[in-house]
Structures are given as C-alpha cells and as structure tokens.
C-alpha cells in the first residue's frame, strides 16, 4: 500500500453489481449474509415440513410470533455479550445469573412481598423487577471489579460465577419451583395477555416508520452540512422503502396471529361479553418490544456515546486506550455491570414466560448467548462487534432450534446441528475477513 495513492481509486475499480450495490447503499455485507442465511433457514424448514409432513409449519404467523418471543431473552443478553467480547473478555455466568435472579424475584413475589402488601398488590411486580435489575447489575459489577481491578481473567471469574450463582439459585429456593409469579409480572413474558394487540401494534409500527425516516433524513442532512459524500437519492429512497416495508410486514404478521379460542372465551367471560369466534390479534409481544428497545438503546450506546467509543478502543488496543486517558478499568467494570443488568431483564422475561422461577432456569444460556454474538460477527479477538448482528445471531440460533423442534428432530440432533452451525459461521466469517483484507 502506498501512502501517496489516493484511496478514491479503490471505488472506481470494476466490481460485480452486488458489491457496487453494497458500496453505494453502504450496507454491511455481513448483514445481508445473515439475512440470507436466515431466509434460507426459514424457507428450508418450511418446505421440509411441506414435503415430509404435508404441512409447512414454519412460515406461519403463529410460529414466527413464538419465534420472536423465544428470541427475546437470548437476544437481550447477546447485546451485552457484544460489549463483553469486544473488550476482549467473556461472560460464562449469564445462564446461572438468570437462575439466581429469577429465584430472587420469584421468592420476593410469592413469599416475601405478599406478607407486607398482600397477594396481588399492584406494586409487587414493579418492586420485583426493580430488585431484579439491581441484583443483576450488582452481580455484574462484582464480576467486573474482580476482572478489572483485581486482574483475574474474565474466563475464571465468570466460570466461578457460573457455579456460584447456580448453587445460590438452588440454595435460595431449596430446590423448589417458585410458582405462580405475580399476574402483572407474567405479562412481561408474552403470551396472549402479554401482547399489545392490533391497534397499539399499528401505532408502534407507525412510530418506527417515522423513526426510520428521521434517521435517514438526519444522516443525509448532517452529510450535506459537512460537505461529505452523499448516498444517491435512489439508494436513500430504497433504504426507506425497505425499512417501512419490513416494519409494516412485521405488524401485519403479528396482527394476523389470533388469540386461541380458549383464551378468547376466558377473556369474554372476564369482560362479560360473548366473544365466541371473534378474531383478536396478538400484536407485538411485550418481550419482543423490550428486545427492540434494548437493541436500539444499546446501538445508540455503542455508536453514539463516549462510553461505546471507549469500549471499542479498549478492544482494539488496551494500551492505546489507557494512554489516551481512558479509565479502562472503570469502563470494563461498567461493561460487566451492564451485562448483569441485561441478564436481569432476560431473567424477568424468562421467568415471566414460564410463570415460575426454577433453579434450572437459564442452563446453557451462556453458550447460546456467546454463540449468538459470535454468529452476529463479534470477533473473539476483541474490538469488533455489532448489536444488530448479535440480535440477528440470536434469531438465527432460535430459528434453527425451533425449526428442528417443528420437524421433529430430537434434542441430541439439535445440539449437534447448533454446534456445527456455530463453527461453520465463524469459519465463514474468517474466510470473508481474509478476502476483504486482500
């Protein structure tokens, strides 16, 4: 590479239509790759069902709706795992943390708080969630402190955490299953009542469309202001169209999954109306909305704040970050505390969805979370990672799993497939990176 060669020439060289398209629209090729893989998995499972079981169960509103709910908990944790891995660390303890946090929240709702405020009091779920979040953040902060300030490798600290918190989960409940959780707490886990319904889904969809429009408009505006290279107008319009179409498509999808008959009858009895045969849409599930909110929040944190910049800098070159005056230890500790908080959110969703807290909740989740982050393009060498990649990675993992359940693979084969896909995904990533560098 020669210093005097202006890099502009690089863009002029002849390329395929696809790579020109990627350059002009400034899309991440990895994103397209993952969307392609996802489409392949979805269509593959659907037609496998069509051919061998005479019924394609995958591409149905019901399955996709469930898929979105199942992805939430892993997806939320995967966004935090991106930060952890970007700073060249690892967190093996998230699965156990889910268990112990769920146990703490479960005991609080079922055994502690009712003694003071009475069963079913409105404040129970709020207090439980807040205590859960604080507990999770605290556990993460302890891990972070040991890693950053006591300089114990993250692998060891969180491996210890994996065992300690699982043990604590068992001890705290004496091995019992704590159930049922507070009814309003259970809404956070999804299900017919834990979804927002058709009209609110349309409102959310509308707001999302406005949001997409604003992001693209303000991006263009700021480039004009500073006289930078602009995307061609057709590319901007295409991005907006694709964005709006996906949002509207998602709203239509979740609205076309009706409540089951039994739930409609139950609800009808509750409100004193005969709703027999009425089509009541699920709409977006609450945990999915939480995932989207977390995803947006974490993306802003990673790309638009100093903290996010420091996280990347530490991953890229820890010494340079320290020499630039960044308090690398404090940042590392905050990353783990944040991981703990996100794990607590995931724990709320997981236990609410089960309507119970068990000491086995979240077993092996750490591996799925790490796999999701890595499939999503997070480099284990540190410094590279994207939030949306991790969420998509979680979706890929979950699609594989529920697809295999739908077509009747047993769990042993599921694990084999997931394991092979993980290795393959990372290998493809390595091949891709090598080709990009050349």
């Amino acid at each position, binding site marked *: 590479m020669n210093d005097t060669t202006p890099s502009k020439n690089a863009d002029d060289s002849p390329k395929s239509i696809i790579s020109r398209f990627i350059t002009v629209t400034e899309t991440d090729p990895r994103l397209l790759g993952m969307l392609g893989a996802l489409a392949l998995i979805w269509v593959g499972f659907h037609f496998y069902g069509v051919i061998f079981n005479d019924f394609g169960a995958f591409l149905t509103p019901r399955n996709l709706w469930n898929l979105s709910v199942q992805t939430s908990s892993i997806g939320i944790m995967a966004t935090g795992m991106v930060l952890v891995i970007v700073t060249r660390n690892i967190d093996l303890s998230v699965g156990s943390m889910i268990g112990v946090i769920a146990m703490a929240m479960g005991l609080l709702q079922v055994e502690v708080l009712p003694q003071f405020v009475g069963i079913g009091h409105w404040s129970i779920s709020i207090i439980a969630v807040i205590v859960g979040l604080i507990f999770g953040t605290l556990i993460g902060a302890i891990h972070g402190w040991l890693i950053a300030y006591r300089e114990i490798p993250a692998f060891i600290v969180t491996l210890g955490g994996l065992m300690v918190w699982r043990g604590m989960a068992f001890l705290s409940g004496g091995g019992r299953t704590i159930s049922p959780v507070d009814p309003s707490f259970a809404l956070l886990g999804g299900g017919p009542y834990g979804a927002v319904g058709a009209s609110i889904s349309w409102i959310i969809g509308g707001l999302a469309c406005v949001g997409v429009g604003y992001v693209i408009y303000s991006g263009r505006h700021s480039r004009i202001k*500073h006289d930078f290279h602009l995307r061609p107008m057709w590319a901007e319009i295409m991005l907006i169209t694709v964005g709006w179409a996906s949002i509207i498509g998602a709203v239509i999808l979740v609205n076309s999954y009706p409540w089951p008959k039994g739930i409609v009858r139950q609800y009808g009895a509750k409100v004193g109306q005969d709703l027999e045969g009425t089509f009541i849409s699920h709409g977006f599930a609450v945990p999915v909305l939480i995932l989207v909110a977390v995803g947006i929040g974490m993306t802003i944190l990673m790309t638009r704040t100093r903290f996010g910049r420091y996280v990347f800098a530490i991953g890229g070159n820890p010494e340079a970050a320290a*020499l630039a*005056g960044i308090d690398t230890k404090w940042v590392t500790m905050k990353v783990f505390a944040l991981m703990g908080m996100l794990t607590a959110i995931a724990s709320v969703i997981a236990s609410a969805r089960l309507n119970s807290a068990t000491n086995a909740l979240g077993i092996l989740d750490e591996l799925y979370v790490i796999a999701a982050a890595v499939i999503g393009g997070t480099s284990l060498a540190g410094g590279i990672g994207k939030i949306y990649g991790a969420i998509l990675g979680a979706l890929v993992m979950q699609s594989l799993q529920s697809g295999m359940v739908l077509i009747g693979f047993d769990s042993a084969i599921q694990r084999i497939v997931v394991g092979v896909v993980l290795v393959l995904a990372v290998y493809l990533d390595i091949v891709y990176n090598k080709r990009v560098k050349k």
Partner: protein
Amino acid sequence: MANVGTPLVELKDISISFGGIKAVDRVSVDLYPGEVVGLLGHNGAGKSTLIKCLSGAYKADAGEVFINGEKVIINNPRDARDQNIETIYQTLALADNLDAASNLFLGRELVTKSGFLDESKMEAETRKIMARLNPNFQKFDVPVSALSGGQRQSVAIARAVYFDAKILIMDEPTAALGPQETEMVAELIQELKNQGLGIFLIEHDIHHVMKLCDRASVMKNGLLVGTERVENVTEDDILSMIILGKNPKRAK
C-alpha cells in the same frame, strides 16, 4: 540562542525502577519554549521510560516535574494532557479498529449539546488537520489498521498537533517512515518550533539530531551522561557519549 528565563519543562532527579532495576536514575533535563531537545542513547538506556514519566504513562518513584516553573503532579495521561503535553509514542498508540477521526479524538471526543458523539464534526476537523499535515491522506472511513505506516504516523502526529500542545514528546517519529515522509516530519518539527512549542525528540539517527535539535541529552544505563548544545559538539562526540558514556572533550 541562549536559553534564559523559566524553562517550559523541568524534570528534576527523576528515578523509576522496575523489579529492582533502575531504569532511570536521578535524571534531570529541561526544555525551553521554541526548543527541540534530543534524547539519545542505546536501546534500554531509559529515554522512553523517562519520557513516559512526563506523559503520564508511568509514575516516577522519585523526582519532580515543573511546568513553567510550577511543580505539577502527573499521575496519568489525562494529567499530562491537562498540562498541554502531547505524546507521539513509538508504537503510535492507535486503536487499530477505529478510523482516523475516532483515534484523533480518542479520550477527547467532541459531543453535541445532547451529549452524543458529534461524528460529522470530528470527521470534518480531522479532514482539516490532515489536509495540512498530509494532503494525500484520503482514507477517513476505514479503520487505521488498513493504513500504511506513514499514514498511521500522520494520524498519530495529527492527534498531538490538533489539541494545541505546548509541549510535544516525539518517540522516534520517523522510525517507520520513508525519506519523503521523514522530510515532512522534519518540516513539521521546524514549524511547531517556530510556533513556540517545546519538543522532546527521542531519535536514534545522529544526523537528524544534529539537524533538528538545539540540544542533545544523552543517557546510558538509566543515567544522564550529559546535555550539550549541538553546535558545540560533533557527531563523533555525541557517539562517544552514547557508546562510552562520556564526552571526550569534557573528559580532557
């Protein structure tokens, strides 16, 4: 040009040891505004270590630092930056995964009123300073790992120059550069010197030292051999200070 008045920087009796080995042993050097002081010596003589005590990368075990005659405590790189001390490290200290603008503003990011990073402003500022330092530089949207040695060097230099340094520390700034780029750095040093900056220059190439520096301080085994005005010594004198640890003229 005689140095009169208060020195810009005065390092007094700085000592630092690692595991019982004295890397720097009671070394005193000073630097005046508009002056370039070369630091010379073998690998492991203690030059970089001494300078890292000023830049905040290390904390000296003993000794004092004076800036404009006032005693200051430098515990970390942030303290050094607050004293308008900027450092270009031999390793360049760049985060390879970030682009030029992110590296230039690392630790001192520009933010909008709402507290978010002002990416466009930072890129615009980076384009401005790079246009001055290295007009050929065009790669603003790729990680610095994709840049050549010279381009990376210019990012590191831009970072030091952009923030109105009063004191500049350059640790072998031309080690990775070709002849043309080395010439550019030499011109830059001259320009910054004329602006009144004080520059510590760690340099192995004696020709560069004779050409660029006003004074040269030579270190050997953690000790200061001596500080000479370059017009009073020959290259051979400097060499024997480096190798033998004494100035033949003074020894006589």
